[in-house]
């Protein structure tokens, strides 16, 4: 992530959308609408939404990751399994429709003045009229019958209107998007996508099918295009039949993707696991733990892709795995690398002798510098004690017993190799303080015995121990 993040993160921040974008506009109510279309795990719009057994919806990849790490629904903590997830296609449609409309609506909402001036007349008057009608009815409350009938009337009117709009949209779809089945009683060959009569398909498959999509057939008819963009126009509510045909169209024609089963890693030998990874076409670097984690991630990515209406190519999935590899896997920086290093060393096949030979010089350096530090610390302490004794003199006689304990105690701390450097640092710091105290103690005012224990408290040994 180190190499790619800096610029990306800044650029990406500008492109990140959030439900709170609406709050500063007059349409702040849409914030809640948008929040309901976002996954609670990734906080982004649902991608391939899936329903859990407890009827919560998450992105396929989010819930699969969560379940494979925890086995519980993140919202209600009910136990669940990946196998039981079901697609929430209605949600996917809503999200696709909303995200498509979003930029225009947001722009509209963010620049209300210009919009109002350009369209001042007609819509506003209509709105006023509408409000007038409503006001009339609400003022004449008792006639609730009339209110109901009139709402029904306006409802049916609006249904007519939507139906009309839907008809128009449907026409547009047919005209503009060749991705929808033309109503010509022909079907596509599942392999080369050529259109023909139903009875011809079998014979065509046996004899004349070229075995791959025909290059001259419209590219938008090929399912792979779908991965690139959101479909141009989403079918409106009334044209559900065309929407289902649209779905069928998005399924890959020939080979349906098969979900990968989860592996019981404990029952697999490392060699077998490596073989599995090779078969799947993913990297086999790293120790056993890394192999398991990589396999788990790949299964998650793969199965989430199987849930998708518009599955992506394997190359894209491998790219996702690559991103994961850079942040969590073998190529991850800092902390996770030391973790894999640890795993490497704990590995059964770990070659201790080779490791010692390879890192021998740095080990020697470390030992040498530790010894040096220790010697220096010892020397300093000796000097200090000598100084203290001479400076404080007889006055400190009664405290000598406390003082005498210090070197031993420090020795204990010293014997722990890790502490050596910290200890010297502390000694340096305390030495300065001691100088001041010693100066005080030996000042002509002749401090009382009572102040001397204070100086002792600051001596290096006691500080380190406490």
């Amino acid at each position: 992530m180190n190499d790619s993040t800096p610029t990306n993160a800044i650029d990406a921040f500008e492109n990140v959308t959030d439900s709170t974008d609406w709050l500063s506009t007059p349409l702040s109510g849409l914030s809640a609408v948008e929040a309901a279309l976002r996954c609670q795990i990734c906080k982004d719009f649902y991608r391939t939404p899936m329903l859990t057994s407890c009827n919560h919806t998450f992105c396929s990849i989010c819930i699969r990751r969560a379940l494979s790490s925890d086995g519980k629904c993140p919202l209600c903590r009910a136990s669940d399994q990946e196998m039981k997830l079901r697609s929430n296609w209605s949600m996917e449609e809503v999200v696709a429709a909303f995200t498509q409309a979003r930029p225009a609506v947001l722009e509209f909402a963010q620049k209300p003045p210009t919009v109002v001036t350009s369209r001042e007349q007609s819509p506003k008057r209509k709105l006023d009229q509408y409000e007038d009608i409503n006001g009339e009815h609400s003022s004449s409350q008792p006639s609730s019958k009339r209110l109901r009938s009139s709402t029904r009337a306006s409802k049916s009117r609006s249904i007519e209107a939507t139906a009309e709009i839907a008809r128009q949209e449907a026409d547009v779809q047919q005209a503009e998007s060749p991705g929808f089945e033309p109503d010509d009683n022909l079907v596509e060959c599942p392999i080369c996508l050529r259109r023909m009569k139903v009875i011809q398909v079998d014979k065509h498959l046996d004899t004349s099918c070229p075995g791959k999509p025909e290059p001259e057939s419209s590219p938008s008819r090929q399912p792979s295009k779908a991965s690139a963009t959101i479909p141009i126009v989403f079918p409106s509510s009334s044209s559900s039949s065309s929407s289902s045909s649209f779905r069928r169209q998005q399924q890959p024609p020939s080979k349906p993707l098969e979900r990968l089963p989860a592996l019981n890693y404990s029952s697999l030998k490392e060699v077998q696991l490596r073989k599995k990874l090779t078969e799947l076409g993913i990297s086999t670097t790293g120790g056993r733990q890394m192999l398991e984690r990589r396999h788990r991630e790949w299964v998650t990515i793969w199965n989430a892709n199987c849930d998708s209406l518009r599955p992506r190519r394997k190359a894209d999935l491998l790219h996702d795995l690559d991103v994961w590899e850079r942040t969590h896997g073998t190529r991850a920086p800092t902390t996770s690398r030391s973790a894999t290093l640890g795993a490497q060393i704990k590995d059964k096949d770990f070659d201790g002798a080779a490791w010692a030979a390879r890192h021998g010089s740095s080990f020697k350096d470390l030992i040498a510098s530790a010894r040096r530090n220790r010697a220096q610390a010892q020397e300093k302490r000796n000097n200090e004690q000598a100084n203290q004794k001479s400076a404080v003199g007889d006055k400190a006689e009664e405290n000598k017993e406390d003082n005498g304990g210090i070197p031993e105690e420090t020795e204990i701390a010293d014997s722990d190799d890790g502490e050596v450097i910290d200890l010297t640092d502390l000694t340096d710091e305390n030495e300065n303080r001691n100088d001041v105290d010693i100066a005080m103690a030996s000042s002509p005012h002749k401090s009382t015995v009572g102040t001397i224990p204070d100086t002792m408290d600051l001596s290096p040994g006691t500080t380190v121990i406490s």
Partner: protein
Amino acid sequence: MSLSTAQRRLLQEYRNLTNDPPDGITAGPVSEDDMFHWEALIEGPEGTPFEGGIFPAELKFPKDYPLAPPKMTFLGEIFHPNVYTNGVVCISILHPPGDDPNHYEEASERWSPIQSVEKILISVMSMLAEPNDESPANVEAAKMWRERRPEYEQKVRDGVRRMLGL
């Protein structure tokens, strides 16, 4: 776009907090080079001895965020039953549901991927107002809070004043 899941999610949260910051809370990455290291400022809640104080804290996110919770540490001095003397905050929302040796925390209060920086900071703010002395991180503070409340409040107020340089 080769951002990891965690980075994308953190960007998303940063966006959310920038657009709509909760009262008394600011938070964001220390530098845009590293989305995994945030700094936050929390105002002392009104009507508590922490009132008037502004408490800086740092948040460190794990690579598998939001599966695992971040770590939160107050950067300044803070005397509170649920904050270790080194500043590390100890509240249930920051604990993964797995390990709960004392069984004092409801599973529903623990970390889950649906939690967020915003929810953590709001929880910490309410923790300042209402310490939980069942699992003290700072035993001395917890004892004082339970047994000598006025002294505790005075000590907290003194701390706030020191921090503000008064």
